[in-house]
């Protein structure tokens, strides 16, 4: 099956930035960008909930090659809570109301920039998975929490240097 290559992640970054989409990488794809060693199948994108942002996201997705019909466009523009897209060059989940994160602005304030990719802070990634409470998330939480501790320590070391 076709993979989801880094250059395609860059295309997301560039297309979303070009359309002014306010979003953050969440989930394991976000953790991977931060340096967490694991695997995932798709990119989970947390989008700020507003009609303007929904419209900008549709423009960006079409630019990326996603085929969206009128109903799908309408649902994304009105920021339907969870949208799974597998009708493009790669798989993307659009999350407008993730479990465990109250407000996009709060997550944005805490976010991390990784080579131009806006990524949720590890604490938000963890809180989201903890709140989702799925079997697979519960199994991965201890290692993700350990990574968060490692990552914080590395950041503190870099800032002191």
């Amino acid at each position, binding site marked *: 099956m076709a993979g989801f290559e880094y250059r395609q992640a860059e295309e997301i970054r560039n297309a979303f930035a070009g359309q002014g989409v306010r979003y953050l990488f969440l989930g394991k794809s976000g953790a991977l960008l931060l340096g967490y060693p694991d695997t995932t199948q798709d990119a989970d994108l947390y989008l700020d909930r507003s009609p303007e942002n929904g419209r900008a996201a549709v423009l960006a997705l079409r630019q990326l090659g996603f085929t969206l019909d009128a109903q799908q466009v309408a649902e994304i523009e009105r920021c339907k809570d969870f949208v*799974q897209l597998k009708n493009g060059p790669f798989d993307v989940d659009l999350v407008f109301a993730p*479990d465990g994160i109250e407000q996009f602005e709060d997550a944005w304030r805490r976010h991390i920039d990784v080579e131009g990719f806006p990524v949720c802070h590890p604490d938000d990634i963890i809180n989201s998975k903890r709140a*989702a409470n799925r079997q697979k998330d519960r199994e991965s939480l*201890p290692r993700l929490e350990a*990574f968060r501790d490692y990552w914080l320590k590395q950041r503190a070391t870099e800032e002191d240097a």
Partner: protein
Amino acid sequence: MPDAAHSGEIPREWLDEFEAAARRPVATRWNYGLVKTYKPVLDDAEYRSFESMEEYRQWCEANLPEWLGYGRV
């Protein structure tokens, strides 16, 4: 395999993995990490949408094989 509960000290095995990943360029981290394998039912539709995360979770529990791990604990 390290103890599942994270008590504060990072198991050596995990620490080695974190340090190895930290040395990789971001592109390599991504390319190593994005692995597509077929997930029954989940990958059988090109588009799905849900009015709420609760609705999505319930759909997963009702429709996905249990072994995929999408059910809530």
